[in-house]
């Protein structure tokens, strides 16, 4: 127990620095993923067979290969064909590309879940395709995809731990350095674990609360009934 307080008191700045890096790359990675997700979902729906195929292949590759491998390819592999990134840049790109693959599917099924009638009604009313997309389809899709998208963001925050292998000073990387210096591996990594738990639960809570305000009617994320006291809101699986 003493070890625990020792590590916490002496290395708190390093942990906070790590949390900052984790949060930063996760947010930027998510923005990239979001963009890829929208573009990919649009490509899948589009009339161009080539665009749909490219998006399809992209999703398959991302979903059938480990993220660790993707990180290695982006950081260590790409330079040999001319694309060189710093570990910070590679981190954001890796998170973005990986998350994007999953978001394409999430967005696609979100759009697919909108009843056909909506599109037909919009057509009957004479709305242009752009108008239909932005005023009718998108708002309804947003409601549907909100929980899984938040889930994907959380997965990205957790996935950022893998970036320690390219030397990024995020939470797990900092914990490894501290653990080597102090040899107190258990307390150090437990603190790192707690840092992630705090991050994910705070984000989850904010997302649930935000859901009530951002949508009209307010979006209540459905909670299950069967279990005992629920400590934290259940996250939808991405």
């Amino acid at each position, binding site marked *: 127990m003493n070890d625990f307080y020792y590590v916490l008191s002496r290395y708190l700045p390093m942990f906070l620095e790590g949390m900052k890096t984790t949060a930063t790359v996760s947010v930027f990675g998510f923005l990239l993923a979001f963009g890829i997700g929208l573009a990919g979902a649009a490509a899948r729906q589009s009339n161009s067979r080539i665009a749909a195929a490219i998006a399809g292949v992209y999703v398959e590759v991302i979903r059938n290969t480990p993220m660790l491998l993707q990180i290695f390819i982006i*950081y*260590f592999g790409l*330079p*040999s064909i001319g694309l*060189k*990134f*710093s*570990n910070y840049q590679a981190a954001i790109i890796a998170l973005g590309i990986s998350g994007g693959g999953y978001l394409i599917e999430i967005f696609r099924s979100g759009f697919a879940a909108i009843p056909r009638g909506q599109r037909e009604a919009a057509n009957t009313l004479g709305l242009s395709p752009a108008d239909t997309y932005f005023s009718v389809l998108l708002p309804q899709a947003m409601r549907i995809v909100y929980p899984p998208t938040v889930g994907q963001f959380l997965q990205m925050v957790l996935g950022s731990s893998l970036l320690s*292998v*390219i*030397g990024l000073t995020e939470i797990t*990387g900092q914990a*490894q*350095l501290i653990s*080597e210096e102090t*040899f107190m*591996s258990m307390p150090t990594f437990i603190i790192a674990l707690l840092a992630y738990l705090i991050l994910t639960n705070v984000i989850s809570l904010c997302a649930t609360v935000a859901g009530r305000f951002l949508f009209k009617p307010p979006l209540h994320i459905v909670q299950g009934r069967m279990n005992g006291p629920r400590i934290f809101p259940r996250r939808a699986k991405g």
Partner: protein
Amino acid sequence: MTRNLIDFAKLAVAGMALCVAVVSSPAQSQESSSDILKKVLERGTVRVGECMGLAPFAVYNASNEPEGYDIDIANELGTGLGVKVEIVNVDPAARIPSLETGKVDVVFCDTTRTLDRLKRVSFTDTYDVTGTVIMSAKDTPVNSLAELEGKSVAIVKGTPYGDLVKKAAPTAEVISFNSPADIVTAVKQGQATAAIENSAFLNYAAKLDPSFHVTSDSVIELYYNSFAIPQGQPNWLAFLNEFIFELNTSGKNAALYKKWFGVEPPFPLNPKF
């Protein structure tokens, strides 16, 4: 798919019991407090911890067999003991924990003796003397620790070079990688301006790839590298020290060094007692 839940439950319980048994009964490791030398002789195998990927100390060749300077020495040790040699891959950062938890009997890895490490493990006599050098790309050469100010330096996790750099060049950005091969790749691809590691390893990397520039002198005092073993093993320590003594005086050590590094050992070991 079986619908028999009782069988499922029995299988589940059996499976979990098996897993618990597998996990909690360390198959090979015995009490690390008892005599390792005796255990090794009884077992008929010596488990040598190696940091695979540290060329040319220990690497895997195309047929996935370990080979290298350290590996040859390990085989000599096996011959001296009259047992088989089992090479166990350890991460540089996991060298000390591997010894403390009995995963290996001895660790090579060109490990440096430091007072800090001696608090937790014991070291034999020196088997390899290296300096510490800085490697950089030829068009952006770095020649001293002070020149690292404001630049990015790649080091391996679990080595003492990070602190060294921070003291000499506080504004340097230290990037820690998991394996020695990664720091070479990082410099080669320009993702770090320099790398700092022991001279044997970096000189060898530069020999293979002339686009690297390595500082010619050691930037700090020489490191005397030895085998690491768990604490409290007087017999094992005595055996290994005698082994290293004979390795040096017979010239075998120098010959192996020349075989793998292509040059005479820059800091020859000639114990005269």
